């Protein structure tokens, strides 16, 4: 039995994993992968099967937990974005040598473009590096089926399998046919039964280098067997062969039909880009690979593509880019490039606690201080000059430490302030703070604690006290971690309490200068993008006193709230009431005191 439902690629992957029996699923949020795990949680709530489906503190921990579950014969999977796989790489490469005892799938979402990532790296290359087979689905329907196939392949060969998706697929939607999930026979695997006969296998699970050599050899044999049955599927019947995988395949298929190239082109679909077997292509005049974002099939099968400049080496291979590629091959005439007008840059939400908090930081430490930022919504503070570096998760802390050390060595006084969010701090900000403390580096670390993973859609953090199922959880307190390291100056303040925040920051500044030790200020304010956060947020409606506003634009430039807009005719600032959430923070910003609170709810004067 099957039903048709309208799903995103990420949702389809979750359905596929759960339908094939995954009962242990972890991950770390990261666009465009974040919706997979919550979808599986919804299925768990709906079907009430046993298992563990929840976030881990970072991708390495997530992968290790899921892999260890597979060693206990529970089908497992882990989700992350492509840069998250870098964090988990040590565990990932190792997992191929050891091999799971039950199906184990690593789902990684790449971000060609990039739309919301630091790199355009191709996880299919990472799969090759780690010697792990990789599926590359081309549609939402395939995402569902490949999730199942990946698990089956993993079970059969006792090898981890990577399921690679991209932004276009993860966030793409389609009505697809899926098997009805049956609770009674599929959703209650007997944990006790599976675990009863669990035996130690030290030669494998704690392998020495000598045994590792043998494991490597066994892994190579598995890969060879998989490559033997890995067949390219062919569409159309021309004498130019275009090979592709992933969403790009679907764009090419559309273009070939749009331009009636069915007699000129054969389109080869590669479901598993690694491990591939050499095929006989002698009947084709040319062989070209079009794939996102790195040459993988191209290198293995020695074809044209990026090596001769037909395929661009950076950026998403959108339908328009694929059209240009067909023109470069000589199949169609050159197309005019569409000039896309730029959209308004993104900024922090109106009322975001990070904005007023970081405005206070800028007020106390000035523009000369170096602000080493991190990955999260607060990266957008670069719009108003409170973020000078953005690198990778946790680097806000290590960059501050390294840079400050250099300034100290050179004898030049320069304030260096690290900025990191709560979830990012727990993810990978703790180790560099240990070094900052240990080496007595006088940095100030601002930890922005909004009690959620904001940027990726408000996922749970380890500070939460309840799971999605209502189970009690231990709440991790960031200030305890900081104090536990040994840092003496640790202050917590709600960033909405602007004057108090200023006082705390001034205290931190004196402490740094006098004591030459690391200090930490935790600026707390719940994310107003969550329902509870918005409901509990203080309400302080404001208005602009027209006579006082001199049109200096200080609030627009230095505070950058989207609800503060410029009235071109009057040359004064206006409040966009459709965006304003009445947080009242901008009252503290205007140097002319032209923004005032409206008492008695008489805010219709806007």
């Amino acid at each position, binding site marked *: 039995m099957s039903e*048709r439902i*309208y799903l*995103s690629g990420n949702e389809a992957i979750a359905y596929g994993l759960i339908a094939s029996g995954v009962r242990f699923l972890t991950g770390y949020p990261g666009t465009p992968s974040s919706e997979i795990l919550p979808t599986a949680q919804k299925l768990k709530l709906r079907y009430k099967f046993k298992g563990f489906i929840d976030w881990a503190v970072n991708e390495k921990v997530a992968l290790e937990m899921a892999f260890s579950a597979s060693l206990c014969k529970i089908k497992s999977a882990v989700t992350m974005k492509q840069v998250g796989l870098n964090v988990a790489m040590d565990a990932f490469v190792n997992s191929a040598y050891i091999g799971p005892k039950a199906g184990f799938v690593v789902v990684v979402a790449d971000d060609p473009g990039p*739309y*919301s990532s630091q790199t355009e790296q191709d996880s299919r290359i990472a799969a090759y590096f780690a010697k792990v087979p990789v599926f590359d689905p*081309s*549609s*939402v329907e395939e995402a569902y089926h490949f999730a199942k196939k990946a698990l089956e392949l993993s079970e059969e060969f006792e090898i981890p399998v990577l399921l690679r998706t991209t932004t*276009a697929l993860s*966030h*793409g*939607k*389609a*009505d697809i046919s899926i098997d009805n999930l049956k609770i009674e026979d599929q959703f209650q695997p007997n944990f006790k039964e599976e675990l009863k006969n669990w035996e130690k296998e030290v030669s494998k699970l704690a392998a020495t280098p000598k045994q590792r050599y043998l494991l490597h050899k066994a892994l190579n044999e598995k890969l060879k067997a998989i490559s033997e049955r890995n067949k390219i599927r062919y569409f159309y019947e021309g004498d130019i062969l275009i090979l592709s995988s992933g*969403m790009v395949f*679907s*764009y090419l*298929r*559309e273009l070939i039909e749009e331009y009636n190239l069915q007699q000129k082109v054969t389109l080869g679909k590669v479901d598993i880009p690694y491990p591939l077997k050499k095929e006989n292509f002698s009947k084709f005049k040319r062989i070209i690979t079009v794939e996102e974002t790195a040459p993988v099939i191209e290198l293995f099968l020695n074809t044209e593509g990026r090596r001769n400049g037909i395929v661009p080496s950076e950026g998403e291979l*959108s*339908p*328009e880019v694929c*059209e240009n590629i067909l023109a470069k091959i000589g199949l169609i005439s050159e197309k005019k490039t*569409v*000039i*896309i*007008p730029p*959209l*308004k840059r*993104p*900024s*922090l*939400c*109106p009322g975001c606690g990070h904005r007023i908090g970081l405005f206070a930081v800028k007020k106390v430490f000035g523009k000369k201080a170096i602000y080493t930022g991190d990955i999260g*919504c607060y990266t*957008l503070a670069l719009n108003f000059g409170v973020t000078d570096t953005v690198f990778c998760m946790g680097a806000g802390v290590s960059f501050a430490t390294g840079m400050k050390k250099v300034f100290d060595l050179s004898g030049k006084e320069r304030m260096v302030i690290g900025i990191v969010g709560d979830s990012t701090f727990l993810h990978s900000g703790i180790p560099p703070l240990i070094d900052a403390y240990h080496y007595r580096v006088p940095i100030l670390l601002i930890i922005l604690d909004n009690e959620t993973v904001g*940027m990726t859609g408000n996922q749970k953090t380890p500070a939460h006290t309840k799971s999605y199922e209502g189970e009690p959880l231990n709440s991790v307190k960031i200030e305890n971690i900081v104090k536990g390291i040994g840092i003496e100056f640790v202050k917590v303040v709600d960033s909405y309490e602007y004057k108090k925040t200023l006082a705390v920051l001034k205290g931190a500044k004196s402490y740094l200068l006098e004591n030459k030790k690391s200090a930490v200020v935790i600026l707390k304010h719940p994310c107003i*993008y969550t329902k509870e956060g918005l409901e509990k947020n203080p309400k302080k409606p404001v208005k602009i006193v027209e006579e006082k506003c001199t049109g200096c634009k200080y609030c627009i430039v230095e505070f950058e709230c*989207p609800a503060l807009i410029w009235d071109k005719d009057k040359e004064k600032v206006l409040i966009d009431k459709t*965006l304003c959430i009445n947080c009242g923070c901008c009252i503290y910003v205007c140097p002319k005191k032209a923004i005032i609170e409206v008492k008695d709810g008489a805010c219709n004067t806007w």
Partner: protein
Amino acid sequence: MELVILGKGGQGVLFFSKILAQIAIEEGESVKATEIKGMAKKGGVVEVQMKIGEGYSPKIKRGSADLVILLSPDLEAYGKTFGEKIFTFSKEEIEKAFKEVPLRYVNTYLMGIFLAKTGIFDINKALKILDEENQKSLLKGYAYVQSQNGDFTKRRD
């Protein structure tokens, strides 16, 4: 049919596109769509590309959309990169929607206007997938256009 729906976060772009997709599915058509949400949430640009009854991928090539639906008029230049034919709601229509129905049903009211003006889908299919309150709101929007036009002949072209 290739549609692009553009607006700002909070304007109901996703709701609007979800309803359209459901109507199409109800009509027995396949639907493929992609949602692009900006980093900033409230006020950020939300873009939905949707193919109904055609294609293999959800992405629409610039210049090839049959209709671009703008929920935010300032996105017109951007919207036009997808296709020449633009649909927007007039100021009067939006004001009417806010006046006629409670806030949470404004989008279905506008959907009624959209269906009446474009004739893309059968109104009865739309009614089938909505709850009672939304049905009422949809019909009100639909009726508003008919009352403006006198007779209902203003179809797709």
